[in-house]
């Protein structure tokens, strides 16, 4: 079996930052696995500004922020990039199995950094009653459809949850000519950054209902309406407050969960404080480690994982 010094799974902001700092700290054999056909991860579909203020002290869009790291990585010969490469198994011996077009391979790594990111919580996870029509999307999927695929998923939108992706998509839908009927947030305060409430909702007069929840989604083939109900301090429905909103599309922006199946399948435990795990030489960073608000913080923290991996490898010699 081929043996590599450091294998990093995931080519988003976390994996790229870890790769660059590992190289800067003396690791000279790095393999970076990315399942998509380009590096950058979720940044590629985050075309809005707001990235880079902390790290570069300037305002960048997601693709621009990613580009800084992509260009840097491509100029580092010690980092081998393997695109369209999907890791399917990880063991405690640090053997990684991955598929890429036409082949499945296993390699043994001396050190591993898992930077596999996160995914969105779904309708099923927040228990919304009603029928199962088409037109229900997670906010990030709608973002990909509009910004990457050039497809508009609907024209009358209700957004469930006020996470940052949901707020940003509210503005994006309006810019693309759709009408956003409402954003519905069960908590008393919006969960996204205040700047997104201001520049995505208030700028476009989009109504925000805090302390409300969508109690049902209805439609025969396509979404036709949602029922909205106010909740009390214990988050119990106040049935007399129920009202309906006609719409053809519902977006869910109700939080993110770490994508750590490979680590869990390997029986590895993440040390929640330090980017390390109970397997020496195996590290976790970025949204796979914890859910971040800002890509800049992901970069800073993931750089530490790169340094930790470098220090581990140095001790092995």
């Amino acid at each position, binding site marked *: 079996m081929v043996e590599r010094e450091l294998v990093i799974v995931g080519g988003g902001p976390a994996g790229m930052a870890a790769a660059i700092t590992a190289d800067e700290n003396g690791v000279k054999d790095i393999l970076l696995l990315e399942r998509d056909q380009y590096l950058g991860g979720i940044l*590629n579909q985050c*075309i*809005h*500004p*707001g990235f880079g*203020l902390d790290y570069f002290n300037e*305002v960048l*869009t997601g*693709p*621009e922020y990613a*580009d800084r790291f992509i260009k840097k990585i491509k100029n580092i010969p010690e980092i081998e990039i393997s695109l369209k490469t999907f890791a399917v198994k990880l063991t405690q011996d640090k053997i990684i199995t991955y598929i890429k077009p036409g082949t499945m391979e296993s390699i043994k790594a001396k050190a591993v950094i898992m930077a596999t990111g996160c995914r969105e919580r779904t309708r099923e996870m927040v228990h919304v009653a009603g029928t199962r029509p088409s037109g229900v999307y997670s906010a990030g999927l709608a973002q990909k459809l*509009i*910004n*990457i*695929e*050039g497809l508009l998923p609907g024209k009358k939108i209700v957004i469930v949850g006020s996470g940052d992706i949901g707020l940003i998509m509210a503005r994006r839908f309006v*810019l*693309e000519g759709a009408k956003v009927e409402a954003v519905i947030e069960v908590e008393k305060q919006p969960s996204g*950054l*205040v*700047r997104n*409430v*201001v*520049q995505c909702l208030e*700028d476009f007069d989009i109504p925000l209902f805090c302390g409300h929840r969508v109690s049902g989604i209805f439609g025969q083939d396509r979404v036709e309406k949602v029922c909205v109900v106010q909740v009390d301090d214990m988050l119990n429905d106040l049935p007399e407050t129920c009202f309906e909103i006609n719409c053809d599309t519902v977006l869910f922006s109700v939080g993110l969960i770490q994508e750590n199946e490979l680590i869990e399948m390997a029986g590895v435990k993440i040390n929640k404080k330090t980017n390390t795990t109970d397997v020496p030489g195996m590290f976790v960073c970025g949204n796979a480690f914890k859910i971040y*608000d*800002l890509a800049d913080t992901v970069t800073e923290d993931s750089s530490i994982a790169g340094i930790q991996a470098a220090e581990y490898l140095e001790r092995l010699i």
Partner: protein
Amino acid sequence: MNKKIICIECPQGCDLMLDIQDGKLVSVIGNKCAKGEAYAAAEIQNPMRILTSTVLAENMSFKMVPVKTSKPIPKAKIKEAMKAIKKIRLNRIVLIGDVIAENLLGLEVNLIATRDC
């Protein structure tokens, strides 16, 4: 007159209290940096926003090219700017920072690509 707004220059989102006399900004409190003052002044006179969107590419490996205005444009012009952006068709390879449309709506702002496509 006092007015409360939230600064959107950075993710901190400072609560600003503005003192406005005769439509002019007299003082700002609550900002943690100088950007807050400039933001407050612009919000009173002429709110400005960077606009980001996508441009349709034809016969290229990417279907959509992400773009942004090189500088903030008046908030009131966003709708019109989107109309102009939607009319653009790209059929050449672009690099990050390339000008896609010059002097958008005569606002002395260029539309630039934000990704190598």
